[in-house]
C-alpha cells in the first residue's frame, strides 16, 4: 500500500479501494481520504472550512459504521458542495449500545468548475466490504467498493 494509506484496486465496473490504519480512527480517516481522492485531485484543495460530525448507529459493526461515515461525507459533497481533504477522527467506540464516531472534517466549497471531478460516486456499497485486523503488521485493513 502507498504511504497515503489507501490504494485503488482493479474492479470490472466500479471503484474499489483498499485502505489501512494503525488504529480504527486512522483506518476510517484513510477510507474518507481514499474516497475523495477518487472524486478529485486533493492536492489542490485547501482545508479552509471545518465541520464537526457526530455519528451514532445501533449496530456495533465497524463495517456498518464505515458505510454511514462515508455516506455522510458524500452528503457533504453532493448537498453542501464541499470537497473534503482532511479527516480527523477524534474517537470511535463500539459497545452493546452500538457504535459512535466523532470527527472534524475540512475542505473547501466546490463551484465555478474549480475542481476537476474525476468520478461521481453514487454510494459506498456493502459488496465485499471488509475490515480486518492484521495482527502481524499491527494494522487495520479495509476494502470497499463504490458504485459510480
Amino acid at each position, binding site marked *: 500500500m502507498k504511504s497515503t494509506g489507501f490504494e485503488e484496486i482493479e474492479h470490472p465496473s466500479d471503484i474499489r479501494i483498499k485502505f489501512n490504519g494503525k488504529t480504527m480512527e486512522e483506518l476510517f480517516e484513510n477510507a474518507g481520504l481514499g474516497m475523495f481522492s477518487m472524486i478529485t485531485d486533493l492536492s489542490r484543495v485547501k482545508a479552509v472550512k471545518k465541520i464537526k460530525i457526530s455519528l451514532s448507529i445501533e449496530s456495533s459493526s465497524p463495517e456498518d459504521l464505515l458505510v454511514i461515515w462515508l*455516506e455522510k461525507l458524500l452528503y457533504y459533497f453532493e448537498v453542501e458542495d464541499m470537497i473534503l481533504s482532511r479527516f480527523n477522527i477524534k474517537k470511535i467506540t463500539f459497545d452493546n449500545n452500538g457504535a459512535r464516531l466523532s470527527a472534524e472534517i475540512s475542505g473547501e466549497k466546490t463551484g465555478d468548475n474549480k475542481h476537476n*471531478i474525476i468520478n461521481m460516486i453514487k454510494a459506498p456499497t456493502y459488496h465485499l466490504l471488509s475490515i480486518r485486523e492484521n495482527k502481524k503488521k499491527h494494522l487495520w485493513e479495509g476494502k470497499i467498493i463504490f458504485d459510480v
Partner: protein
Amino acid sequence: MDKYMITKLSDYKWKVERDTSIGMNVPGIIYSDKKLLEHTIKEGAIDQIANVAALPGIIKASFAMPDIHFGYGFPIGGVAAFDPEADGIISPGGVGFDISCGVRAMRSSLEIDDIKNRIEDMMSFISFSIPRGLGGKGKIDLSKKDMDRLLSGGAGWAADRGYGHKEEIEYMEEGGHMEGADPAYISETARKRGARQLGTLGSGNHFLEIQVVDKIYDRAASDIFGIYENQIIVMIHSGSRGLGHQVCSDYIKVMQKASEKYGIKVPDRQLACAPIYSPEGKRYYGAMACAANYGMANRQCLAHWVSGAMERYFKTSSERLGLSTIYDISHNIARLEEHDIDGIPKKVCVHRKGATRAYGPGRPELPPAYRHIGQPVIIPGDMGTYSYILLGTETAMKESFGSVCHGAGRMMSRSKAKKMISGSELKKNLKTEKGIIVIADSMSGLAEEAPEAYKDINSIVEISCMAGLSKKVVRLRPMGVIKG
C-alpha cells in the same frame, strides 16, 4: 467451472442446472453466445445468478441477459420474478442504485442534411442548456410540497409544470408515473440530494445524443413508431440522480434488518430483502416508486431543455421540429406485473437490474398506437457506437417475463480504461474517424466510457434477437454526444 453444470439449450440459451445443495430454488437461464458465456463464467457472474436463484419465492429461473456482468448482489443484466403469495421477496439489490435509470428516444422532422454541416455548432449550443456533469446542479429548485407532488406524480407533474407536453406521457412506461409511490418513505437525506438535481443529466455512462436513423430492419414497425431513414433522433440516458441512489442506500439497511427478522439468509449483503407484502417490502416499493417517478420526471425535464435549445437554435417551434417521444423506458426497476404462470394470470414482482421491459403485442399497458405490435425497446449504445430500437415479443413474454437486455455491459475496468486510453485522443478520433462530436467536461470520465471498455452492442442485440426476446426495428448512429 466445475461448480455449476451448464447445459446448452440452444446457440443462444444456456441453463445453469438447479443445485439444491447451494440453495438454488430454480435454475439459471443465460441468454448468450458461447464466447460471451465464457467471459461471464470467468468474471464470476454465475455465482450471482445462482445466489439470486436461491432467494425465496423466485419463479421459473434466475435470468441473465446477454449484457450480463458482475454487479452487487444481483448481476447487472439480471431479471428475476418473485411470487408475493409464496413469500416472494423484493430487494433493492435487484434494482440498483440508479433507480429508473432509463432512456428516452424522441423523433423529429429533421434529417441528416439539416444538421450534418453544423453538428459541432449545434451540439455546443444545446450543451449550454443541459445541466450535467459531476455534482451538477439543475435549473429547478424544489420546495418540499413540489418534491412530494413530483415523487407521486412523476413525469405528469413535470408536464403540468410546463416541462414538456402532457401528450408525451402516454409514451412512457406506466404513463410516466409508477403507482404505489409514497413520499412518506423518502428520507430527508434523499430529498436533499434530489432537491437541486431535477433536470440534470448525471455522469458516468449517462448522455444526450443526437443520432441519425442508419438502418431500418422492420419497416412496418418503424412506420408505426414514426421513424424513417435519415431522420434525426434525440436520445437521453439518465436516471433518478442522488435521490434514487440514497433510496437504495437507505433501504439496503432496512432490508438487512428485515432479512434477519424474516430468517432469510443471503450470501451477499447487497441481496438483503424482505417479503414483498411485509411492512419493509411495502415501504421499499413505495420509496422505489417515488424514485422511479423522479427518474421519469428527470428525463421529461431533460427532453424539455433539449427541445427548447433546438427551438432557439433552429429559430422555430418544437412542433415544427416535430420533436415528440417515441418511448421512454427504465432499465433498473422492480414492478408488480401480471404474467402468465402455467396458464394462470398472476401478479409477480419482476426485478430488472440493467434489463429492459420488452412487452409483446396485445399488452394493455402499451399505448393504443403500439399495442398491436408490441413495445419499443430503446437500447443505448455506449459512446461512439450504434443504439437500437427493438420490439418486444411473445417469446419474451413466455420466457423472460417480457424482458431483454439494456445495453452493452462493461468489459474493462475504469482504472484500466483511464490508463490505456486518453480522453482527449478519444474525443479527437471520434471526430476525425467517425464524424462524432463529443462534448464532455471530464477527459478521464470520457476515457472510462471509451467503446473498448464495453462489450460489442451489436453482438448483444444480435443475441437478444436470435434468442427471440426482441426484434430489431432500427439502428441509430450517433452524430453528437453530450456526456454527463
